C-alpha cells in the first residue's frame, strides 16, 4: 500500500507540475486527497506491520497521519479559494500544488518510517517542498524568508545527521548495525551513554528547526508568516508534528537508558526557554500571523515540558499536540480571510472585524478562547494535565513562572485579537473590501468543534492510540 501511495503521490505531483489547466489541477488535487485518506484508513487498520523494509505504522504514526489527513482537506480547499481570488500565473499555481503534495507525502513518509535515517531523509524533503511554498509570492520578503528557512533548516538537519553518526558509533561498539527504532529500543541499555548524550544533543538541536523550539526557531517563524495562509496552517500543525516526532522517537529510546532524566532536563530547558521567548515576542508583535507562529512555539514548549515530567505528562503531551494542530490550523486558515479583507496582516490596519465578516470573527474569538485553554476547550484538559504533571514532579518554580508567562501570553494575544475584532480601524477602505461568504469559515468551525469534542469526550479508539504511543515510556 505504502509503495502505491508513494508512487501515486509522485506521479500526481509531477502531473501537477507539468499541467497548466486549472480544472485538471483541481482534479489531481482531489485524487491526491483520496489517496491520502485511503492510506490513513489502511494504516489505521494495519498497525504494527512492516512495509517496504523501513516503514511501520505504530500508534503515534497513525495519530499524526490522521491529523495530517484531516487538516489536508481544508488546506487544499483554502488553497483553491486562495487561487480563485488572486491573479496567479498557471505556472505559480502548478508549483504551489505540486509542492503541497510533496510536502504532505514526505510528512507521511516521516511519520511512518521505522528507521532513524529514513525519518531524517523525509524530514529533509519537507524542507525542500516547504521552501517552494514559502517562496510562492516571489517578492523580496518571501525570498528572504525562503533563504533563511532553507539555510537554517539545512544546517539544522546536518546536525541531525551528525547525531545519527554518533549513534552509529554507539551501536558499533556493541557490534550492532541496524538503525531501526525497534532495534535501538531493544538494545538501548547496552549502548554507551556518552555517545548517546552527544547524539541526543545534536538530534534534538536539529529537529528544533521543524518543531519551532529554541534554539533553531527563527526561520520557522518567518516561514509561517511568509507562506500563503493554507501552507502556514500546515507548517504550524503537521510540519511541527514531524519535528516533534523526530525528538520524541529518540527520547523514547533514551527512556531505556540511564540518561533519561538528563534528556528530560534538556527538553525542559528548551521548552521553558521557548515559552519565555514566545512571551517576549508576543508582547510586541503586531503581525497576526507571526503572533500565531509564536503561539505555536509556546505550545510546543509546553509539550516539551510535559514530556520531561513523567507519566501524566506523556499522555498530556500527545493530547496537546493533537488539539493544538487542529486549533492552530483553523486560526491560520482564518488569517487568510483577514488578509483578503484588509490587505494587511498588521493589527494597526485592521479592526472591527465583526462588522465585515461575522463568521470569521466568531472563528477568531472562539479560536482565541480555545487556544488560551478556557473550558470547554479540549486544550483546557491537556494543559491542566501538563501543569499537574509539573506539580507532581516537584517543579514548583518552573510551574509558577510558566503560569505567569502563560497569563502574560494570553494578555498579549488578547490585546491584538480584541483590537482586530472590536476596535474600528483608523481608515478602513470599506469600498474595496471583499465580502467573504460565511461558508468559507465552515472548516474552521469543524476543526475547533473537534478540539472541544476530543478534549471533553475522547473516543475510546483515540485514547487507546495515545496510550499505545506512550506505552514504551516508563511509568
Amino acid at each position, binding site marked *: 500500500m505504502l509503495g502505491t501511495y508513494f508512487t501515486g503521490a509522485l506521479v500526481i505531483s509531477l502531473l501537477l507540475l507539468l499541467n497548466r489547466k486549472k480544472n485538471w489541477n483541481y482534479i489531481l488535487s482531489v485524487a491526491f486527497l483520496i489517496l491520502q485518506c485511503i492510506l490513513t484508513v489502511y494504516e489505521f487498520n494495519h498497525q504494527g506491520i512492516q512495509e517496504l523494509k523501513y516503514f511501520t505504522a505504530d500508534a503515534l504514526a497513525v495519530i499524526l497521519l490522521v491529523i495530517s489527513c484531516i487538516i489536508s482537506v481544508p488546506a487544499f480547499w483554502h488553497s483553491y479559494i486562495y487561487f480563485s481570488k488572486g491573479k496567479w500565473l498557471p505556472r505559480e499555481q502548478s508549483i504551489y500544488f505540486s509542492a503541497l503534495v510533496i510536502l504532505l507525502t514526505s510528512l507521511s513518509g516521516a511519520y511512518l518510517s521505522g528507521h532513524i535515517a529514513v525519518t531524517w*531523509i523525509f524530514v529533509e524533503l519537507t524542507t525542500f517542498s516547504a521552501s517552494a511554498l514559502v517562496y510562492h509570492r516571489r517578492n523580496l520578503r518571501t525570498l528572504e524568508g*525562503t*533563504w533563511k528557512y532553507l539555510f537554517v533548516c*539545512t544546517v539544522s538537519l546536518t546536525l541531525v545527521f*551528525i547525531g545519527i553518526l554518533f549513534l*552509529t*558509533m554507539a551501536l558499533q561498539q556493541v557490534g550492532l548495525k541496524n538503525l531501526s527504532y525497534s532495534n535501538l529500543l531493544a538494545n538501548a541499555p547496552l549502548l554507551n551513554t556518552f555517545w548517546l548524550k552527544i547524539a541526543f544533543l545534536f538530534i534534538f538541536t536539529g529537529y528544533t528547526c521543524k518543531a519551532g523550539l529554541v534554539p533553531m526557531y527563527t526561520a520557522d517563524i518567518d516561514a509561517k508568516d511568509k507562506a500563503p495562509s493554507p501552507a502556514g496552517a500546515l507548517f504550524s500543525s503537521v510540519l511541527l508534528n514531524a519535528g516533534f516526532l523526530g525528538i520524541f522517537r529518540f527520547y523514547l529510546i533514551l527512556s531505556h537508558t540511564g540518561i533519561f532524566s538528563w534528556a528530560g532536563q534538556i527538553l525542559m530547558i528548551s521548552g521553558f526557554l521557548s515559552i519565555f521567548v514566545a512571551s517576549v515576542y508576543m508582547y*510586541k508583535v503586531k*503581525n497576526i500571523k507571526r503572533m500565531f507562529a509564536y503561539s505555536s512555539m509556546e505550545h510546543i514548549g509546553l509539550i516539551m515540558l510535559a514530556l520531561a515530567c513523567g507519566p501524566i505528562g506523556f499522555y498530556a503531551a500527545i493530547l496537546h499536540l493533537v488539539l493544538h494542530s487542529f486549533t492552530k490550523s483553523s486560526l491560520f486558515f482564518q488569517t487568510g480571510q483577514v488578509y483578503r479583507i484588509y490587505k494587511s496582516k498588521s493589527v494597526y490596519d485592521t479592526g472591527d472585524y465583526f462588522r465585515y465578516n461575522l463568521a470569521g470573527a466568531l472563528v477568531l474569538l472562539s479560536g482565541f478562547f480555545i487556544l488560551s485553554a478556557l473550558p470547554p476547550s479540549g486544550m483546557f484538559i491537556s494543559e491542566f494535565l501538563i501543569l499537574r504533571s509539573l506539580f507532581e514532579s516537584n517543579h514548583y518554580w518552573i510551574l509558577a513562572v510558566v503560569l505567569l508567562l502563560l497569563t502574560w501570553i494570553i494578555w498579549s494575544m488578547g490585546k491584538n485579537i480584541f483590537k482586530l475584532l472590536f476596535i474600528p480601524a483608523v481608515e478602513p477602505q470599506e469600498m474595496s473590501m471583499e465580502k467573504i461568504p460565511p461558508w468559507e469559515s465552515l472548516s474552521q468551525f469543524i476543526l475547533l468543534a473537534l478540539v472541544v469534542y476530543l478534549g471533553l469526550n475522547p473516543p475510546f479508539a483515540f485514547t487507546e492510540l495515545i496510550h499505545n504511543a506512550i506505552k514504551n515510556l516508563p511509568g
Partner: protein
Amino acid sequence: MTIILLIAFIISLIHLSVSKRLKTYVSVLAFQGILLFGAAFIELIRINLVNLLFILLETIVIKSIAIPYFLNYLIRRNKITRESEPYLPDFISLVIVTAIIFGSFLLSGTMYTSINRLFFMAAFSGLFTGLYFIISRKKIITHVMGFLVMENGVFALTLAAGAQMPMLVNAGILLDIFASVLLLGIFVNKIGGILKEQEAGQLRNLKD
C-alpha cells in the same frame, strides 16, 4: 597516509581563516575535496565497488570540480567583489580558528573509541570553522561556503563512523549534493538577480 591527509585538511582551514579573496576560498574548497577523496579511498577500500565508486565520484566530481566551478561562475555572473569582507580582522580570525582546532583536539581526546581520533578532530574543526565562517562573514556567498566547509567536516565524520554502514554514507552524500544544489541553485537564480550587493545585511526585513 590518512593522517597526513587529515592534517592537511586541518591546515587548509587555518589558511581559509586568513585568506581574503573569494577565489582562495573556492580553491581551498576544491583542495579539500581532493583530500577527502584520498581519505575516502584509503578508508573505504574494503566496501563494495559500486558504493566506493559512488563515494569517490562524489568527492572528486562534486566537491572538487562541480561546486568550485559553479561558485566561480556565480562570482563572475553576479559580479561579486573579490574580497570576503569579514566582520573581524584576520588576526582575530586566526586566533579563533586555532582555538577551534585546539578545542576539537581536546574534545576528541575525551572520546572513548577505537576509531582514529584524528578523524574526529578534523571533523569537529571543519564543522565549527564552517559555523564560524557563517557567523563572521558579510556576504551571502561566503555563508554558503561556510556551509560547504561544514559539509566537508561532516564527510570526514561519515568516513569515521560509516565505514561499516554504506547506507549511511550514501545518505550523507545525498544530503551533500541535495543541499549544495538547492542552496547554490537558489543563489544563482533568485538572490543574485534581485539583491544588488548580496550581503546578509540586506536580509533584515523580517523581524518583530
